[in-house]
């Protein structure tokens, strides 16, 4: 299913629930929504098979995103206003580590963890202080 091109790239992580639909349109993807007690899970699936999970709290904010699939997701699209912070974290990792390794950005306001290889990338990003009560990072998959 195709959607219109050129929609504004609203923030995803940290944004409101409308950003989920912007992400879906940008990635030309399908969307499945599952409501839970602590949060609503929006699953965006692209035609290539990349899956992005966007976790939306009861107050309508995206507090976490997770992904897996054959390519890296469009980070600017799904991280929104956190994109620059992510980019700075990548720079810091690269400066410290010679060789290939998983990425583990652990900052007060942002956690990004990325692993895998071409054809099988996996990762997640979340804002620790935005996690709803009772939600742990282990649930962000």
């Amino acid at each position: 299913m195709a959607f219109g091109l050129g929609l504004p790239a609203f923030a995803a992580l940290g944004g409101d629930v409308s950003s989920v639909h912007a992400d879906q349109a940008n990635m030309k993807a399908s969307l499945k929504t599952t409501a839970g007690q602590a949060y609503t899970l929006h699953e965006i699936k692209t035609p290539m098979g990349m899956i992005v999970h966007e976790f939306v709290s009861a107050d309508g904010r995206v507090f976490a995103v997770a992904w897996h699939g054959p390519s890296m997701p469009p980070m600017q699209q799904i991280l929104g206003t956190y994109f620059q912070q992510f980019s700075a974290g990548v720079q810091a990792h690269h400066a410290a580590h010679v060789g290939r390794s998983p990425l583990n950005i652990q900052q007060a306001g942002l956690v990004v963890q990325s692993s895998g290889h071409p054809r099988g990338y996996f990762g997640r990003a979340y804002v620790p202080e935005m996690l709803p009560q009772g939600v742990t990072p282990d649930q962000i998959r």
Partner: protein
Amino acid sequence: MRRFLLLISVVSLGLLVGCGSGSGGSTPKGVPTGGTGNTQPIAVDGGPVANTIYPNGAFIDVTICNPGTTTCQTINGILVDTGSFGLRILSSAITLTGLKTLTSGNSTLYNCINFADGSYLWGAAEVADVQMASELASSATIQVIADPAANTFTIPTNCSNGGIDEDNQVALGTNGILGVGPEPVDCGLACDPNGGNQFPPEPFYYLCASGTTCTPSFVSCGAICGDTSANQQVVNPVALFATDNNGVIIKLPTLSGGAASESGSLIFGIGTQTNNQVGSATIFTLDSQDTFSVTYKGVTYNSSNNTPSFIDSGSNAFFFPDTTIPTCTDVTSFYCPTSLLSLSATNLGTNNATGTVNFSIDNADNLFAEGGGADAAFSTLGGPNAGGGFDYGLPFFYGKSVFTSIDGAAVPSGTPAAPWWAY
């Protein structure tokens, strides 16, 4: 509407300077030279970058030639990576002139690859004959990283993705990457014009013309995707060999702790010669994302849990989640336990084959300091994979012959369909 651009013309890029054959990059630190038969030497020697040690990098020489000719260049310091697919070489390491770049009209075909660590490679898709030992991959599409050296267009955001452009030897840590993982091409059917996708997926292939915005493009993967046209995707060169084309073996000697360097072999083919028989090795078949399952300290890490596990010579340590092991304060991507840890994990293939892996993790700061800071090979180097599963990097390979079979390739009788790992 399907945006399908048939790439049929190949023209000389003509931007490379130099004088024909010769050795690219700096003088190799290690010993690998041209191999014989189906065996190319590997050196874990710190890599080609002056004054920098690349820990646990498996490096080889690769020879590229203008297609159909004997005009060639041997390039040292190429990282052997079973986690990716296709040959990618820095343009700055290539002195050979006359490689053919893929074009469509006045647009050049570019290739992009993202790595999970946030870095990426961008460069033209060009055609070369690729030689290693006595094996030849004719007219292989390779990625020439950062070619042209000065981009005349902006790298698409979905390629750069907020990451690091490893467009030079210091950033990349090597002169190139030889992707000999369990797939024949870097994208496959999803990027193929007949693959059923309405839009070309990103970030893989782009057509770029001077003064315009790059456009995502489909590129044929040839016969393996049911096309009558030839493959033009960046290709695992092994898949193009006339024989010994169904996979590779990485063979490294046993190592205890650290060493200045280690020498091993990249052996082509599985079950095709006397030196590449599976024998008593255990075969672990892979899921659709080329991963398997590992259980460690009672927790199972696999793609069903979105914590996949895999074997990858291009990762330079054992990377796995264990919050009880302290990370180093200077480099948080490595573990720094207070004493040597003896650990165990259990691998499980999709064919239900199981195997126990016993491994040790030492203090990375101490490992790097030993040997006067000159060591490049470490069997006990580990680090966290905080959000994921097990990533068995190069230390896993010491003391083993590790087989990687290529998806879709013919495998020895009695073995399961590829892709699989065996050791």
